[in-house]
């Protein structure tokens, strides 16, 4: 593969808590498991979209300047009551920006680590953001640290991932990433790293992409990986 640049960021390790890792799903119906995975993937996508929307909405703060407020007041006076309600919705939207922000809770504090955020109180899907923008045909390695909190049970984690979805119709195949080692074996009470090996396809389009990472054999070990591709 041409123009490969390898970046091994040994210091940048994302911790993913493995609490609940022992919930093996042998007895659950396959259709229910499939549904659970799809829901988590869709919700995580929605959270990403909400974050992007939040960034856009931040610009609406400009509306809060005194002149704009006066303009709105004048507009309210002259306009139909439906318009008045819509203006109210706009001002409520601005006020709600802060409450949307509060749903993003960092669970990783190491300064050099890739960004890992909790996606919401009940969805429990950590978000792992690749810390640099990648170019077409670029190769990148990112270690992710996992801890086995069980004091008695050894864990063998077999990783798999979905294809990447972009903002629009863009997709990246699932084999854009691979895991090393796979499976990752963790003794009781120990931690270890799996390296995410990312190879951006040469024909990939610019944009943000996300995919679901999960352990094939463990119900609760899931994360969304987010990466950004820029034109090289």
């Amino acid at each position, binding site marked *: 593969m041409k123009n490969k640049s390898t970046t091994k960021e040994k210091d940048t390790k994302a911790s993913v808590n493995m609490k609940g890792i022992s919930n093996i799903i042998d007895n659950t119906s396959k259709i*229910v498991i*499939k549904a659970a995975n799809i*829901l988590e993937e869709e*919700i995580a996508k929605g959270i990403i979209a909400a974050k992007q929307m939040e960034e856009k909405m931040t610009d609406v703060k400009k509306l809060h300047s005194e002149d704009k407020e006066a303009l709105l007041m004048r507009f309210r006076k002259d306009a139909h009551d439906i318009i008045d309600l819509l203006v109210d919705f706009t001002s409520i939207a601005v006020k*709600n920006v802060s409450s949307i922000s509060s749903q993003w809770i960092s669970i990783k504090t190491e300064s050099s680590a890739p960004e890992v955020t909790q996606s919401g*109180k*009940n969805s429990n899907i950590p978000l792992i953001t690749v810390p640099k923008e990648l170019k077409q045909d670029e190769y990148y390695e990112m270690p992710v640290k996992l801890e086995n909190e069980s004091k008695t049970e050894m864990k063998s984690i077999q990783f798999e991932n979905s294809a990447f979805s972009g903002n629009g119709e863009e997709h990246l195949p699932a084999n854009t990433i691979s895991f090393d080692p796979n499976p990752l074996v963790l003794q009781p009470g120990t931690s270890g790293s799996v390296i995410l090996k990312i190879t951006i396809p040469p024909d990939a389009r610019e944009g943000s992409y996300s995919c679901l990472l999960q352990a094939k054999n463990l119900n609760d070990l899931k994360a969304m990986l987010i990466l950004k591709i820029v034109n090289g």
Partner: protein
Amino acid sequence: MSQNDIQEKFLNQLTNYRELSIKKLLEFIPEREPKKFLYDLVSIYPKRAGKGFRPSLCISTCKIFGGKEYEAYNSAVALELFHNAFLVHDDVEDESCDRRGYPTIHEQYGMPVAINVGDAMNVLGIKPLMKNLTILGPKLTWLVFSEVEHMALEAVEGQAMELGWRMDNTCNLTDEDYLKMILKKTCWYTVIHPIRIGAIIGSGGTVDPDRFNRFGYYMGASFQIQDDLLNLIGDKKYGKEICGDILEGKRTLMLIHLLNTCNGKEKERLTRYLAKNRADRTPPEMKWVMKMMDKYECIEYGKKSAKNLAGAALKEFYTVFGDRQDTIDRQFIENMILYMVNRDY
């Protein structure tokens, strides 16, 4: 309590909420011209015997979380109006002939009128959401409004997925594709959002609505699969033409299962059948598809999947509603799932 008691209790409560929400909905239809080709037609679908799941779930969840019944009326009406608007347009897009036992609006009045009636219902759905402002205040009104925005967007995206499959004659679908499509097209707006909205209103915005997502998805998916099964094996009281989904080439879980289990020759024939326009699909071909579904136990597969999902919904119900008082409304939702778990066809 026997299965019959559960069913009777659930259906009675469902009827009460449905009739209440229709009465409230009719208050939002303007008493003015043009009536013949608009406002008289707007009330046709709501007046027909729909199930009324959405308003019932919204109102009952509101009460379960401490709200007063009237606080959920506007949102329940809006849900029902958006739902009926979606049905009018859905029937046009699917070229369906019957809805709730009678001809679809476009069959009776033609496409242009039907599309306009659907548009009107969408517009009328905004009014009750605006009225929320005086009852719920700006914060809750905004939260409900945001829920409805997400619900409507997901539904049209799901519809686009399904239409795309038919337009492209996509025949390599998986269960996951189907589950994703119905999450978007059906589950958000049939179960998840009505419950989320009810809980937001009832709790005054203090409950995290995300807690209901999984429960609502399992329940909605089970409901959709059962609805599709009834289309294949139900009787006329179901209200849509029996096997209409096969005529429409609708990608149900059962059809996808058939596509993935039949042999190469059969798949070729099935793919050719699905490539045809609805009008060109003949009754003998439809019977052949049904025979194939029998051969590959697609109906059984659908029934089992629906039951498993309903069972998972029941388990989730005890997680998300477990800390709530055992009221009539809590029992109503529990009975709704039990009714689905034990449903006979």
